[in-house]
């Protein structure tokens, strides 16, 4: 198997048994990355430092030190995470060249686990977008069809992993930005429960929604990464105070009542009828249903449930997220860092021009929406109403979890669209988030698992949503499915 086809777990084993060195893997991948610049996945390639790190890990291993399962494994970080020594832009001109004096906690923890970061990955500007067409530094292309989008906002992460430029990458998910690109790019991704990963060092978009998570080519790889990324961080007051989790062990733990042929015996999977509306594309519907049939074969029971406010998730999310974003992005004023306009007449002008020049169109739109819904006279009707509906949506999920263990459905209504297809109407893109938004609003963990292929041979993802802190159960179910199928292992043509 070529090196670039090895996933995190396999690479970890190969490195541990010295079949290959980290330096070899890193060099190999750096070569591929160079060759695939046209994908637009990377914003920064940190070759020299990556090779140094790989070398030192190889030396430690050679000297007999016992290292963890991630030691020497190459990854890269979505540019929404700040990193020392390499610029962090969040995909925006506003932060072009910005040097952070500290690393994001997620970055530091993966480095501590021995991962070798190859650089920073392209993303929609400030994580706002569903196609990675909103990056100030050019779009990202879907390796499955380079005329199509990879999804967003973690488009660079998804494309890099799908193109086998990396075995895994970090991403963030606010309204679906890990799950949807994973689905569009045929890879596996997980957004954990809100609070599981620290937000320290993640450039904030919507504080009550943002969550970090891994994108990789299997549930097992995601489990390994998530274990290292996650955990309580005293620098984040919203960080969940729980003991460190071994998600890999949880993924492997057999269910009570399971047997070799039916590892998912006793697992009840709820299918919300609102996730299968008439408007759902036939190819997506078909692929997802077929995947669900596989789950039944594995022993799971499918039941009908309802999430009646699914459609309302769209206005609710697109009120709350922009509101929080409008406030989070106020710090970008050209005073202490970031873009400052070259010409201005006074302080007010400096603010107006710096922000107008530094932010792209989608970001400005969301800042405008957010500012409006918080403004005097509109707060109750919009922001407060949205937060109340959010509670109701979260309660709806709890109703479902009274009847089932997991909720399943599509990740997105269609497969990946063509670059430029949504240009004229930003609201159209918002509507396509319908299936990922509810879990974000409730703070529930959600996964995207490659389920097959739809129109044009484009990947289709199956979404699995669990109750709070049940990442282990999600990963277990996904892992069982991936042991019985091979959609997650398929490679886009030309990237073998």
């Amino acid at each position, binding site marked *: 198997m070529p090196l670039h086809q090895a996933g995190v777990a396999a690479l970890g084993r190969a490195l541990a048994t010295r079949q290959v060195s980290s330096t070899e893997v890193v060099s190999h991948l750096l070569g591929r990355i160079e060759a695939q610049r046209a994908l637009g996945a990377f914003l920064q390639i940190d070759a020299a430092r990556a090779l140094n790190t790989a070398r030192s890990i190889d030396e430690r291993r050679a000297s007999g030190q016992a290292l963890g399962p991630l030691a020497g494994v190459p990854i890269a970080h979505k540019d929404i995470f700040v990193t020392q020594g390499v610029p962090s832009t969040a995909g925006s001109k506003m932060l072009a060249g910005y040097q952070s*004096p500290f690393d994001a906690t997620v970055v530091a923890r993966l480095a501590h686990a021995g991962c070798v970061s190859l650089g920073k990955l392209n993303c929609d500007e400030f994580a706002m977008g569903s196609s990675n067409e909103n990056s100030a530094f050019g779009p990202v292309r879907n390796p499955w069809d380079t005329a199509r989008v990879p999804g967003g906002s973690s488009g660079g992460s998804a494309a890099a992993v799908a193109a086998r430029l990396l075995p895994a990458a970090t991403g963030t998910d606010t309204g679906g930005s890990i799950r949807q690109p994973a689905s569009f790019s045929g890879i596996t991704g997980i957004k954990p429960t809100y609070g599981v990963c620290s937000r320290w060092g993640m450039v904030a978009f919507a504080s009550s929604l943002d969550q970090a998570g891994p994108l990789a080519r299997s549930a097992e790889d995601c489990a390994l990464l998530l274990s290292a990324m996650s955990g309580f961080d005293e620098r984040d007051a919203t960080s969940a105070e729980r003991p460190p989790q071994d998600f890999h062990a949880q993924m492997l733990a057999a269910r009570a009542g399971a047997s070799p042929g039916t590892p998912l015996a006793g697992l009840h999977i709820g299918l919300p009828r609102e996730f299968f509306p008439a408007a759902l594309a036939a190819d997506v519907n078909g692929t997802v249903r077929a995947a669900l049939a596989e789950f039944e074969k594995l022993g799971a029971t499918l039941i009908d449930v309802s999430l009646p406010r699914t459609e309302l998730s769209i206005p609710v999310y697109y009120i709350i997220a922009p509101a929080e974003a409008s406030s989070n992005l106020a710090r970008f004023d*050209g005073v202490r*860092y970031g*873009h400052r306009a070259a010409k201005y007449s006074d302080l007010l002008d400096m603010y107006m021009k710096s922000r*107008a020049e530094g932010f792209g169109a989608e970001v400005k739109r969301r800042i405008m929406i957010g*500012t*409006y819904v918080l403004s005097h006279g509109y707060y109750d009707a919009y922001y407060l*109403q949205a937060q109340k509906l959010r509670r109701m949506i979260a309660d709806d999920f709890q109703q479902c979890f009274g009847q089932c263990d997991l909720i399943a459905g599509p990740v997105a209504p269609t497969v990946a669209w063509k670059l430029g297809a949504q240009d004229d109407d930003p609201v159209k893109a918002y509507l396509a988030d319908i299936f990922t938004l509810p879990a974000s609003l409730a*703070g529930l963990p959600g996964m995207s698992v490659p389920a097959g292929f739809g129109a044009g041979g484009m990947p289709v993802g199956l979404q699995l949503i669990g109750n709070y*802190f049940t990442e282990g159960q999600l990963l277990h179910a996904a892992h069982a499915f991936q042991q019985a199928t091979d959609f997650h292992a398929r490679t886009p043509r030309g990237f073998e």
Partner: protein
Amino acid sequence: MALTPADVSRIAHLARLELDPAESAAMLVQLNGFFRIVEQMSAVDTRGVEPLYTPLAAVQAAELRLREDRVTESDERSRNQASAPSVDDGLFLVPRVIE
């Protein structure tokens, strides 16, 4: 409930965003398009429902964790000012502020 050009102007000012006339006009159309999908939200009766400002409140009894009153940061001025547009004598410089 449609926005007017005056609304766009007011909000852009509150948000410190300079929009040229073309941008303002486009923004108006897009915002109104957006608020059309928001309308369905207002019809829902939410009386008696507590807002969910953070999922933590649904996940577990969310209470603010406090830190001890201790100085844990030292002077990192030069590193922190590495990306500053304009600095002199350790001060961030901005156009003269008149009160």
